[in-house]
């Protein structure tokens, strides 16, 4: 199935798209099950498992104790024995209490075993800020995970990709970290961009892991982004139509990173803005710049602009947090600089 969607398709939230993808895989494959904190009757704190408990019951939608090392490790053990668990880590910020299971076990077992043991599991987690949840509940951290080999990492920006990537993630024989930004879920209790609700086919389909999408075609400047920041970039690209032709690349996956898509777009425009809600230094934006530098730095007509989270923890007060977050105004300023 391709990424084109009929105009008449129903529109759903990203949260609904995710839970629908999981439900469809669970119907066709009895090895798929879900566990995590509050994934049962509550439906996931951010709605990622809404409705699943009602359909599949407590044997396949398992509420766990607050015990991330325990239940992520249990997911690994179940995956090693051939099941396909979808395990939710409520906030990515909580990785600090369980990262050993994630990077020393989930990510390494296939390699350490010389390819003899597979770990087909999905680790689903909420990321991102913008709603004053402060330093321990607002980070993105995808680059932290991406730095460790052995995990695929997907970062949908919209409902269509979220469902297709979830189905791909469940079917993948590798551990896949599925990072959804709370702001793209379309939650009724959080301000949202209209792009968080969109057309999603009812049938099953996949979105390939490791393939970026050209979310908006353009020729003057390449804006590479991911997750919720893509929504801001698209708003800006549409606003600038007629004055600046902006090409927005939605990475959709961090690992594998679609370097070819980035290079092809920058080869066309010669100008690059990177918009990333994760921390600026030692991270994804630097990796993208290195991708250009490794290939041919002369393809850039102007220095790169990075609109990233500055190297500070996430502050609480709205005025402080929005000072730090990537915003439409900052993206516009960056585009203006590189196209000046």
């Amino acid at each position: 199935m391709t990424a084109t969607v009929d105009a008449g398709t129903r529109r759903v939230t990203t949260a609904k798209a995710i839970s629908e993808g999981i439900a469809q895989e669970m119907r066709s494959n009895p090895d798929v099950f879900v566990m995590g904190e509050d994934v049962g009757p509550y439906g996931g704190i951010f709605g990622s498992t809404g409705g699943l408990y009602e359909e599949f019951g407590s044997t396949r939608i398992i509420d766990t104790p607050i015990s991330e090392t325990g239940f992520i490790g249990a997911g690994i053990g179940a995956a090693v024995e051939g099941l396909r668990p979808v395990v939710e880590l409520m906030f990515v910020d909580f990785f600090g209490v369980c990262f050993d299971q994630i990077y020393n076990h989930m990510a390494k077992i296939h390699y350490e075993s010389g390819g003899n043991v597979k770990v087909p599991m999905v680790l689903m987690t909420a990321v991102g800020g913008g709603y004053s949840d402060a330093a321990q509940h607002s980070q993105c951290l995808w680059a932290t995970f991406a730095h460790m080999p052995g995990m695929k990492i997907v970062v949908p920006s919209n409902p269509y990709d979220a469902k297709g990537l979830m189905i791909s993630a469940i079917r993948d024989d590798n551990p896949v970290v599925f990072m959804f930004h709370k702001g793209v879920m379309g939650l009724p209790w959080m301000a949202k961009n209209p792009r968080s609700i969109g057309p999603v086919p009812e049938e099953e389909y996949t979105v390939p892991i490791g393939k970026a999408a050209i979310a908006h075609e353009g020729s003057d400047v390449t804006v590479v982004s991911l997750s919720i920041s893509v929504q801001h970039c698209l708003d800006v690209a549409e606003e600038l139509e007629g004055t600046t032709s902006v090409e927005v690349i939605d990475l959709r996956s961090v690992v594998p990173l679609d370097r070819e898509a980035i290079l092809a777009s920058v080869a066309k425009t010669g100008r690059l803005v990177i918009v990333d809600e994760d921390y600026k230094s030692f991270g994804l934006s630097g990796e993208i710049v290195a991708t250009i530098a490794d290939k041919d730095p002369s393809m850039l007509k102007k220095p790169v602009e990075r609109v990233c989270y500055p190297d500070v923890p996430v502050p609480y007060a709205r005025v402080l947090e929005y000072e730090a977050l990537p915003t439409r105004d900052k993206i516009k300023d960056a585009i203006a600089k590189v196209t000046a």
Partner: protein
Amino acid sequence: MVDNDTRVDFYRQMVRIRAYEAALQANYHADKTPQWDIGAGLIPGEMHLAAGQEPVAVGLCANLEKDDAITGPHRPHHLALAKGVDINKMTAEIYGRDTGLCHGKGGHMHLFDPEQHFSCSGIIAEGMPVAVGQALAFSRKGTDNVAVAVAGEGAANQGAFHEALNLASMWKLPVIFIIEDNDWAISVARDSATPIKDGSLRGTAYGMPSQRVEGNDVEMIYEACKTAVDRARAGGGPTLLEIHTVRMWGHFEGDAQAYRGDELAEANERDPIPAYEKRLISAGLLTDDQAAQIKAEAEAEVQAAIDFATSSPEPKPSDAYLHVFA
């Protein structure tokens, strides 16, 4: 009660494991002189040997089937051999050869044998939640297989131990938690790190049957494990066994063990194998000649495994890039 043939078999298995560890120890040190270098020689890296802990592995694994799972700790050889992991492939892995269990990617702390559902981890206690997940899978698939998590007494102070016990008890999963209490967490004595004498109390706190097994006696360990394994197979949920054993050698090879003082000599007097040999001889189940033959056979098998390893090719350097993803 253990029958007489089984008792001789227990002896044979313990002798086999000891022969293995002794041969590895000799070979490990042989080519690290004159300037001892941990990264040098045919077996590079850290080496944690389990001399003294053979009764735990043998008594436990006598209760297990091929499709039962074990997650072991950084000191895994006794468990792997008792579980039935192929001795040639395991040795080749420890020698970093392409014919090894993991094609040379794992090494002695990261042995994976999916056929025997055996794995181990170098991170203290972190294999325990994985065993819980294996038990969850067995339970979901409707088999009567069990999963065993083995860790040292130092690991029982880690969060992963407590989380694993809580989950397994909550979900009544077929898991047997084995704590090998060898009195030492590297150089820190059990009494300096653990405030209770009987660690099985911790299992009681999580609502599961628990027992501390003293004596390092293979038959008593077998019986305690049998009760636990039978209960798990029958759907009765998890058990915690803390088994008091002995670490006769260093935490790792090259550990001078000055911190043990007089206790070291005392520990070596607690060597379980001569004691068991004596018992079997006085019970008329074994003669000196038979014991010598069992040792000779074990040494020959171990030497053959080492020969297999050393005559096997190393991996291609470019294989370093394989197997990050499936």
